[in-house]
């Protein structure tokens, strides 16, 4: 029986270790789930055209996806995450930001993002919408693995979005001191 006991003892140790690993994994998974941007939209004040429910859902989905990939692009210093999500001026600015970060070796991160969107203007033809975004995030700047800046910022953005092939794309993303 002794060998059985040692066997049992060994077996229970394995089970304990496995449980701890599972807990860590699930917690990190939970923690990871927190990092994707939280976006809310209030389209009640939009005009002259009212924003349809399906359009509101699409804008929230695509704006969240845009900021997720914006962070990924500036973290990996690669422009490919921006493909298909930004257009016009916003696209040019972000690609310049990525290439200048590549040159300087700097990396910036937008973590724990929360965006409160207000639809201000929705064109009669439905081909452009202006939003005011009150964005709250932890903004970090790293140089060679060292964090040189880390602050919890609240920034106001004026956003223009236009309908693309299969989603709304961000055409202008301009920070302003206040609305």
């Amino acid at each position, binding site marked *: 029986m002794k060998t059985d006991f040692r066997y049992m003892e060994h077996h229970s140790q394995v089970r304990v270790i496995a449980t701890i690993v599972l807990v860590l994994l699930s917690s990190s998974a939970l923690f990871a789930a927190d990092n994707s941007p939280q976006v809310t939209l209030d389209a009640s004040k939009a005009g002259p055209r009212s924003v349809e429910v399906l359009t509101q859902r699409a804008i929230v989905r695509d704006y969240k996806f845009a900021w997720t990939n914006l962070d990924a692009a500036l973290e990996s210093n690669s422009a490919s995450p921006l493909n298909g999500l930004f*257009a*016009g001026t916003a696209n040019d600015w972000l690609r310049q930001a990525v290439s200048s970060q590549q040159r300087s070796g700097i990396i910036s991160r937008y973590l724990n993002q929360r965006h409160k969107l207000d639809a201000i203007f929705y064109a009669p033809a439905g*081909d452009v919408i202006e939003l005011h975004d009150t964005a709250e995030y932890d903004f970090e700047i790293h140089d060679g693995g060292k964090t040189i800046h880390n602050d919890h910022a609240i920034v106001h953005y004026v956003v223009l979005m*236009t309908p693309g092939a299969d989603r709304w794309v961000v*055409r202008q993303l301009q920070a302003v001191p206040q609305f």
Partner: protein
Amino acid sequence: MKRTLPIVILIVAVTVFLMFLGLSTGRSAGTVGIASGVALPGFNSSAPNPEQALNNFLLDVQRRNWDRAFSSVERTSDTLNEQAFIQEWVGSNGGLRSFSSLERFDTRPLHATSSEAQMRARLHWSTPVGPVEDVRDFHLAHRGDTWKVIWDETPKPNVPAQIVAVNYLRWDLVTGTAGEEWGAHNVDAPNVRIVSMNAVDSAEGAVVMGEVVNEDTIPAFVNVNATLVDGSGSAIDDENSFDKILHVLLPKQVTPYRIDFPHVSLSKVKNVRMDVKATLVPASSDPVIGVMNQKLETDAQGHSVLHGELLNESGQTVNIPHVIASFYDNSGKVVWVSDGYVEQAMVPQSTESFAVEIPQSVAGKVQNFHVVVNQYSLQES
């Protein structure tokens, strides 16, 4: 040395026996449409009976061995030369038949005596727009120890040379040079609208159909998409009108559309999300194809059929006409849309008959119908 001869005999005998077995078991399918060779000398079968004679003839047609096929028929008139014979099988003027290959055939006797026989062949054609079936009757005659296919097709009358005035409208699209500047070239897409939509269950699955009108003053290229949504709001399936629509619509023109959802039942569907996409395209108002003398009939097999004739009123050849028919009940609702391709090309001012089938489940409700003609022209494409 004693065992050499038995081994040699054994190897040769087994090989010959296996080859003999190979000849009697079924043939594995080969590729289609490549001019392939004939059976090796001594292995092509003779024609001791009408079935075998017709099979040999159709095999030569399938393999495009025209010389052998033409030499095996018995002509009733000398006016029919080999060129006309080949044209009968490969079509002319770039029609659908000229794109097609005979993939396989089934034959059965209608009636036979010791001297002549009537056979019916169901020909399965592989065409660019999908499989097409053709039923054709052959008359055979017993000549000595073999049977011959009697070829009594009268060649098509030569269309007399004629001058046809062609003054059709044409729209060309000039894309601006403003590049990516936002708002610079905002020529809107054509304004088209879905005017009716009806969803029904059919034997193969759910079907969504209806009509689209081009309300704009310029031609529009349209595609209709539909997404079936269940009770929880998630999409079950999304399909599009594919080839069951007239894609290029002139101003105020109406086209039916049909969207098939194989293996989906409407019982699971809460709502249908429709989406019509319209694009600016260069287009032409020709060819104008009239649809004449249409009437609903029941054919020999008991199917309900809309039969009619197409009249090419323009000056350009229509290579592949495609008929799309919409059927309405007494309240004017679209109850079915069916389509069919015409195998022969249509030279200017010529007519060609067509027939499209109506499912039995719907035939009883049909009160009215409307036909539009889509077309493919080598000249345009």
